[in-house]
């Protein structure tokens, strides 16, 4: 339980560093939410862990970290397989908190065009993410 609370506090600190300042009540709510999230995450991780030898035997990914033992269903490298480089870059930029209008400017196109090209990929990500939430 201590580990769970520590992890929640760590997440909360990160959130507070990167977001707008929150009041005491909001911080309390945030912590409660993060503790519940961490409990669910650990329950899900324990339920999915499959021992197949060492993770070093698994196919390499861009992060070759043998400490990772959990195969996450929400794997963006797999979800975005087959997408064009400009869609991949646009999604990376959106992930980096650029607005769609800024992404369009960076890619030399219009906001409507870039959103249309990313629409299918975003729908797939959303489906996977909702699937994850329902499982938890």
């Amino acid at each position: 339980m201590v580990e769970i609370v520590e992890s929640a506090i760590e997440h909360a600190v990160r959130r507070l560093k990167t977001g707008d300042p929150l009041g005491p009540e909001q911080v309390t709510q945030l912590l409660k939410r993060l503790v519940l999230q961490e409990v669910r995450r650990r329950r899900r991780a324990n339920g999915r862990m499959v021992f197949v030898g060492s993770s070093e035997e698994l196919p390499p990914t861009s992060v070759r970290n043998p400490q990772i033992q959990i195969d996450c269903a929400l794997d963006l490298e797999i979800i975005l397989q087959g997408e064009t480089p400009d869609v991949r870059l646009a999604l990376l930029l959106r992930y980096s908190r650029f607005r769609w209008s800024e992404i369009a400017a960076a890619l030399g196109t219009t906001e409507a065009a870039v959103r249309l090209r990313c629409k299918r990929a975003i729908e797939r990500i959303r489906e996977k993410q909702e699937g994850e939430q329902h499982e938890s």
Partner: protein
Amino acid sequence: MIVALSRSFRKDAVTLTEHPFIPFDNEDDSLLFEKLQEHVLAHYPNPERMGCPDPAVLKSLIDNPGDVTLAALNDLHIFKCAECTRLLLELRQKKKQREAAE
């Protein structure tokens, strides 16, 4: 409705995209990407920074997004790296603060 409220009370409201308690997504998919960031931060620790692009590339991505290539970013590595995600969020936050100060 919530958008309007958020804008009306801008001084002391957190923005819609940054509010952690709104249970539905908004028009520009901010909540989706915020949850993705949380997912990556929680599931993909990479303390040894294996496969990470140079921090200068990430800075360039934030400052001049049109000049960075997927190859320089090691393709979709960032989607599987908590350290890169954390650094990106910090750089983005700093940039916003710089812009606000100007």
